């Protein structure tokens, strides 16, 4: 991976072996930031898929993984942005919450957790950003479920 990073790489990325296979990657535009973050998760706080990058899930097993984004985690700046995006996502596939998460988890990302992209200013995806974890980082304990969006009453 040829990077001109906006950060001094003192830590390896958690999924370095995969990221290294890409000639270009958005990581080069990412920064270490302290920021609040919200993400779709499953009802069980400890669900192993809650903080697993999409490309590592079996769902993408047989598909080409063209860019490195799939090894990052999706977050939103605000809870309401995460909520609106999930509701919008389920307009196309009503049951999508069963595979992408039905709840919103909120927490704070720290500089030592990894690097994050700029937040999207596109109205369709407002407040979304990607986050690439450093090795040995486990975000589970840094986040709490803050809202249920879908699921049984």
């Amino acid at each position, binding site marked *: 991976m040829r990077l001109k990073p906006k950060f001094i790489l003192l830590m390896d990325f958690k999924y370095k072996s995969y990221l290294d296979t890409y000639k270009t990657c958005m990581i080069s535009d990412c920064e270490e930031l302290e920021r609040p973050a919200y993400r*779709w998760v499953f009802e069980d706080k400890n669900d192993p*898929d809650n903080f697993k990058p*999409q490309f590592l899930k079996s*769902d*993408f097993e*047989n*598909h*080409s993984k*063209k860019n490195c*984004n*799939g090894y990052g985690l*999706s977050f939103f700046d605000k809870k309401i942005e995460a909520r609106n995006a999930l509701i919008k*996502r389920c*307009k*196309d*596939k*009503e*049951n*999508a919450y*069963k*595979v*992408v998460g039905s709840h919103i988890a909120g927490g704070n990302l720290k500089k030592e957790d990894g690097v994050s992209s700029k937040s999207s200013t*596109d109205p*369709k*995806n407002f407040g979304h950003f990607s986050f690439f974890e450093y090795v040995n980082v486990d975000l589970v304990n840094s986040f709490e479920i803050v809202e249920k969006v879908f699921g049984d009453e």
Partner: protein
Amino acid sequence: MNELQGYEVATFPFPDLDLVGILLYHDFPSTIVYAEDKQSPIIIEWVDCADDRKTHRYLAYKSSIKDLTKYIYGNLSHYNLIKSAADGLIVSYDEANGRRDNMQIIPFSKIPLSYLPKKDVYFESDEEVDLNDVIDFFNIPVKKNYYSIIEKEPTFPPSEITNEKVAIERQLLSEISQKELLKVVARQENSEVINMHIKEGSKIGFGTADTYVLGRLLITIDDLYRETALDHEEGVDRDNLRSINSKRGQSLYPRISTRVVLAEAASYSVFIRPIETDETSTDNHDHSILQKIFSLFSSSGDKTDLSKSKEHFSSYVYKSYQEFLEVIKLSNVDLECNFYNPFKEESIDQEFEYDKAIRLLENIRYLTTTETEKISLNIQFKALNTNTGHYTLKLKDGKQLKGHFDDLLTSLIPSLNFTDRYDVTISRAKINSTGSKKLKFEDTIISCLQSKT
């Protein structure tokens, strides 16, 4: 996951698929494009999963490059992309550990709403994953050339009529055809089934049909079945069944009536079965009632064959067939009737369109037979019409007959009176009209001389 009400199939109808790419989404592959060949996109939609997220449910359907293009460029909603599936046929299946299970052909109308996108959801390019792979594989034109591949710039959202034309083109290309669905439905119903497939007509859209047309087609084909079944039950010399509500009609009803078991968008297809399975449809010797109807369809294309068929059908059958053809003619629809017998694995197809309906109607009218005889009578006129040439005459026994003068004799009428007697020669035509058991007589005076006595 929802219980589906489709028709189970043993094998996946798209066996040889090449993955082209994920269309949507980054977070989960939900709309994935495969290909049978460069012209045939097969789209697989993730729609649901079990609570353990190990068993996933998908819908698979064949689309067209046109529809896929329109979807990608935001001119066709995701809902309508699925609805416009070739032949309107969609296959659902569950997949766990790479193994497909619970495969069903599911009519669009029976897909749970939770499995369909909301109607206002259009493709958003910022959600795409492998869009360029899809565009490259199917050679989809860049957006500025996009409108050159569709007949006209579509409205937003696209009209059903545009879809209808596209759907008809797809009929010819589709591997999972209406005929395949017919076989599946017939096996499921354990009965012979016909697919009355209304392919085109001004009052027919993709998935829609004006009640005026569809209603009449259904009534007349049910009547045709009823009359043929009555011949089967009671012989061709039977009487007319005046009312289905009569005691006789009610006792025969299940054996002489049909039932709609499925309606599908394609442009509009109605699958019809006899209410009660005809015993002859299950044995290998006789023709079933529906087979007899199709043999009538076939023989009606030729006057000689049609004349020969008269020994097998009563006049009521011809009359009901005539009415069915009249609806096709007046509604100007293109219709295809496909028959499938699941017991004998026999298929029969018959197409009807406006010109053919007119030709077949002429052939049926040809069945009208006329015999003439000459009768000499001594009569007295009771009424004469100098304008129309009609007369009423009285025989010696007091019996009255009506008729008209031959055109060559009408000038004679003013010289006739009501007191003298006349010797007349009458040409009597005995007409056996299609659909009528009673002979009709037409009398024409061809000579008239004042009686000498």
